[in-house]
């Protein structure tokens, strides 16, 4: 296990590259998972929502009513890109990569706006009785940007490309026997699994921005996909341009704009300047402090996402080896105060269990609230009165440093001294990533069981808490071999009960995503996926 962790940590090092929250490895990775689904499935869901933009909070544009119309150029000003940006369907790393991937490609299955599975290029994905073989039936009549029709061979080529090169989506296909993928006919693919894998669609959804389907012989320097926009130009770290795909398979809502221009901005200041001076119609990943300026010039889109920025306690290192200390730390948090101070009240209160939008999520677990007296008595029982700990924090996502400061203050009430050690995000995701004793992290939204596979199993690539509980591991293996959703949900609830009572995460809230869009842009709606701008759903946007 130590080896696995070292490896994961090493491979994370690249993320130091980024200039801000968006550049981090794991976090991007997670966001990835959330994003793909929308790309594919978003269209119909958006259509259902109508063309009017109904942001969950703050301003909504009254001009939104009316019939969507085609034409115009949409300028997206996004932060989070780097010089190693890509338009490759499977090699995205940062937020801006995902925006491009969603424009260019479609996965088999993605998310709808409520972060539920939604079929995209697949018409159906069905398991056999033991979940050892899955059969994917493709939507007929879909063509790539170069006119070639989508076939089973393209799916086999794409999945093989992902696994063979160990690209981002490979971990969701870990149990898939890619060597024996088979085309049953031109639109049907058989996916055999090495072990029972009842959660394959959920795992693929979670990585949808890594799972774009590309044609056989795909050349990433001339990227061709099935997505709502066709490739036109790309300069890494600077800008990329796309034109509307007039032959897009899903005609329910868009694509509308003639041209999409994505410009990279190095930081929020220049991004907001671009927005206010009218050079960018869309801006992503804003902090609460930019809201007044952006609101003065356009609209704010706040989405309550299901991604998370947990505090991570290493359960194999003192003082966190004692579950009473972990419980005490969770009881220290005044969660509403945290969202108030960090996001001005936006965001959703968390209960130390991840994946809140999963139908398998157990909403009956009582909400944990601050209880300083109980925390003190637990610490006393554990022999850890007047405990001093170091909390490693970095600017890895909106609000991470701020919430660490708030936690340190709240902990003082329980007699715990929290010394903050602020490092750069490069250092945070450098060689010590996954080794910090008490730190934070950032994850995009994923469904519950796929998230367990990523974070809380002994062989998980990003097990920050070093969680390795035999009963938990056994339950997980049982769950992914269970095809019946009701039975599987029951097992998932048992796992969540363990997470909630003795787990190594503190999940005080699920952070909101705050974006801005110009008054002339319509069709911008929030999503629970945790990616910006309705999971970069440029397809449904149109210009008044």
């Amino acid at each position, binding site marked *: 296990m130590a080896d696995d962790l070292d*490896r*994961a940590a*090493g*491979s*994370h*090092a*690249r*993320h*130091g*590259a*980024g*200039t801000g929250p968006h*550049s*981090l*490895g*794991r976090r*991007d*990775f997670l966001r990835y998972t959330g994003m793909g689904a929308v790309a594919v499935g978003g269209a119909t869901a958006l259509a259902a929502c109508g063309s009017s933009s109904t942001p969950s909070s703050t301003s909504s544009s009254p001009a939104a009513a009316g019939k969507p119309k085609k034409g115009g*150029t949409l300028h997206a*000003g996004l932060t989070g890109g*780097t*010089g*190693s*940006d*890509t338009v490759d369907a499977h090699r995205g*790393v940062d937020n801006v990569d995902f925006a491009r991937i969603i424009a260019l490609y479609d996965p088999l299955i993605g998310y709808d706006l409520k972060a539920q599975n939604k079929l995209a290029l697949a018409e159906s994905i069905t398991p056999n009785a033991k979940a050892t073989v899955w059969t994917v039936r493709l939507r007929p009549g879909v063509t790539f940007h170069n006119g070639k029709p989508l076939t089973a061979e393209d799916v086999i080529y794409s999945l093989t490309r992902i696994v063979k090169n*160990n690209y*981002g989506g490979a*971990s969701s296909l870990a149990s898939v026997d890619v060597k024996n993928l088979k085309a049953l006919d031109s639109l049907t693919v058989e996916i055999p699994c090495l072990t029972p894998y009842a959660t394959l669609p959920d795992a693929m959804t979670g990585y949808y921005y890594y799972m774009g389907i590309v044609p056989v012989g795909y050349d990433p320097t001339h990227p061709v996909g099935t997505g709502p926009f066709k490739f*036109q*130009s790309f*300069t*890494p770290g*600077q*800008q990329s*341009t796309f034109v509307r795909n007039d032959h897009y398979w899903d005609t329910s809502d868009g694509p509308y704009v003639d*041209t999409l*221009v994505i*410009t*990279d*901005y*190095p*930081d929020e*200041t*220049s991004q907001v*300047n*671009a927005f*206010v*001076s*009218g*050079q*960018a119609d869309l801006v992503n990943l804003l902090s609460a402090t930019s809201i007044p*300026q952006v609101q003065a*010039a356009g609209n704010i889109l706040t989405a309550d996402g299901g991604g998370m920025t947990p505090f991570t306690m290493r359960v194999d290192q003192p003082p966190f080896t004692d579950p009473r200390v972990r419980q005490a730390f969770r009881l220290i948090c005044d969660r509403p105060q945290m969202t108030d101070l960090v996001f001005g009240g936006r965001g959703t209160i968390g209960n130390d269990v991840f994946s809140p939008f999963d139908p398998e999520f157990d909403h009956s677990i009582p909400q944990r609230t601050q209880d300083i007296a109980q925390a003190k008595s637990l610490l006393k029982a554990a022999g850890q009165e007047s405990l001093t700990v170091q909390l490693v924090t970095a600017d890895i996502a909106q609000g991470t440093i701020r919430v660490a400061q708030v936690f340190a203050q709240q902990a003082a009430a329980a007699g715990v001294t929290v010394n903050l050690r602020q490092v750069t995000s*490069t*250092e945070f*995701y*450098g*060689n010590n990533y996954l080794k910090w004793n008490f730190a934070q992290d950032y994850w995009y939204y994923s469904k519950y069981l796929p998230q367990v596979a990523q974070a809380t199993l002994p062989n998980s*690539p990003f097990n920050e808490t070093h969680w390795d509980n035999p009963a938990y591991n056994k339950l997980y293996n049982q769950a992914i071999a269970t095809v019946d959703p009701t039975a599987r949900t029951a097992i998932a609830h048992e796992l969540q009960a363990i997470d909630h009572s003795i787990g190594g995460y503190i999940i005080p809230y699920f952070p909101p995503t705050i974006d801005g869009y110009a008054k002339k842009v319509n069709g911008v709606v929030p999503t629970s996926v945790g990616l910006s701008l309705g999971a970069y759903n440029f397809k449904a946007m149109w210009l008044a």
Partner: protein
Amino acid sequence: MTAEAPPTARAPAEASAESRRHPIAWLIWTRTALGLVTLFVVSILIFAATQLLPGNAATAVLGHNASASAVRTMELRLGLNKPAATQYWDWLSGVLQGRLGTSLANGQSVWSLVGPRLLNSLVLVVLAGLIGSVLGVGLGMFAAIRRDKPADHALSVSALAVTSLPEFVVAIFLVIIFSTVLFHVLPGVSPLESTSGALKPWQDPKELVLPVAALVVVIVPYIFRMMRAATIEAMESDYVEMARLNGLSPVRVLLRHALPNAIAPTVQVIGLNLLYLAGGIVLVEFVFDYPGIGQGLVNAVADRDIPQIQFIVLVLAAFYIAMNIVTDVVALMVTPRRRVAR
């Protein structure tokens, strides 16, 4: 590295030994030779510094979730497993043969990535340098002839105030005034983009206005103050008084007699400010998202893209050295008494 010492200190001794050698040619030769040595040392320093960055290009390129074997394969391909000295020599010998290598971040050639940025930055520096010098010299002379009058005081106080502001603060003020808060007349950022791809800076001059203005505002006060002081000094000299007593027109006195003597120290200051521009563009390009080498350098560092970092820093160092030589030569040419071998 600054421009002052050599001609005065060395010229007499060298001139006597090498009396036939033209002092300007000699200066250019020795400075160029020294400059090359400096460049070599700089290249070693840059290489050493990039080795100290956490993480390497293989992990940077592959992303956080790459397997160890994929990282090893990439390291082999990029030669990152070789000793640092070998990596350095591979790079240096490549550069000497005109091969700048390929970007570790995205596999494109370093020249194709840095070349367009170089042009963009050059446009920025040249425009800012030209406008800043003309404005600084003009305002300096104007303030000198209006010495101790309200216009002079206003200019001097403003110059002092602006001097105390860092360039990114100036840049943000300009954006607030002209783009976002007070007026909305100019673009607040300058990414030089169009729907069909990247633009050349002259294709959208509006986007150049604020970045150039920010740099001009920063360099003008220094040039202005030096020009003002030098002009005042020249105007008080005996020969100017003589010229005046001879009944020459004030304009002629200023342009033909005072200016040539005031310009020499000012040239040194202009040179220093152009050198400053080479570094100042990093911040200004960042604020305006202007695709120049300053922004390229920031990105390259973030990506651990060592070939790109090395090339950009080398270009900046070469610019620095070249500008020093040019400044010295120009200063020599406007100072006749130093030009003659004694």
